[in-house]
């Protein structure tokens, strides 16, 4: 019995093949996500796990930096509070973008770029602060040495 001579009542006969059905959701053989073309990419479950975990740890570090900023504000260490506050905010923005990579569909790459941009700004800011601190410490040490030599 095929679909053309099925009885009028009762359950429909099984359809052997429907040419208009959507494609089956077959996982990719290498475990990768799906390249949707036109610059769109969808991360798969394993990749989303890594991204979610990165988002969680980034959020944790952001919160720690914000707590440090608040503690420094209480101690009236304004510069440190501003620096930690800025870095904490950038990390929380990074975490939010990474979480959106996981939770949204069709916007994975733009959100990933947003996350990388925020994270790289934080790293640049941090590097500049570190180099400034080294220069300041070096300058003070040089002044101390010069003062001692002048005194002697």
């Amino acid at each position, binding site marked *: 019995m095929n679909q053309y001579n099925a009885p009028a009542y009762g359950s429909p006969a099984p359809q052997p093949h429907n040419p208009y059905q959507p494609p089956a959701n077959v996982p*990719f053989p290498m475990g*990768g*996500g799906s390249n949707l073309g036109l610059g769109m990419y969808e991360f798969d479950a394993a990749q989303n796990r890594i991204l979610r975990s990165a988002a969680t740890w980034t959020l944790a570090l952001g919160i*720690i930096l914000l707590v440090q900023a608040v503690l420094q504000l209480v101690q009236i260490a304004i510069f440190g509070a501003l620096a930690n506050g800025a870095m904490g905010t950038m990390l929380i923005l990074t975490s939010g973008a990474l979480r959106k990579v996981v939770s949204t569909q069709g916007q994975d*790459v733009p959100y*990933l770029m947003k996350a990388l941009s925020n994270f*790289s700004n934080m*790293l*640049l800011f941090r590097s500049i602060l*570190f180099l400034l601190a080294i220069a300041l410490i070096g300058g003070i040490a040089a002044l101390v040495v010069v003062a001692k030599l002048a005194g002697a």
Partner: protein
Amino acid sequence: MNGNDYEFAPHEDIVIGAMATRAKLWGYLSLIAGGLMTLIGVGVMVVMRGDAKGVGAGGALLAIALAPAISGYSYVSAGGAMRRVVTSSGDDISHMMSAISSLRSAVRVEVIASVLAFCVGFGLGVYSAVSR
């Protein structure tokens, strides 16, 4: 078409390239900081080898130096993987996931070090308050 042939667009490569440079810069600075702390720690232990407190301080500095050394190494690895995303073709997503894994490790080390530092600092504060 599968996920392994995805290539990032030129404007995305610019963002990834900047991230690679900055991750490597911060990674090397962290490694330098860890190295300096290690040198100072060893120096303190050698100079004050007769004094238990001095040896303890040097040892603590060596332990503290571990965090920037490990996270610095992870940042340099992440920067290398990001650079490979830009320079190679055909394996962008795999390099990107490797870079994100390294970044996650670096951030995890920083979080654990911060929590440990807070706990140790809090413990020392309570100990000094009680022992007065």
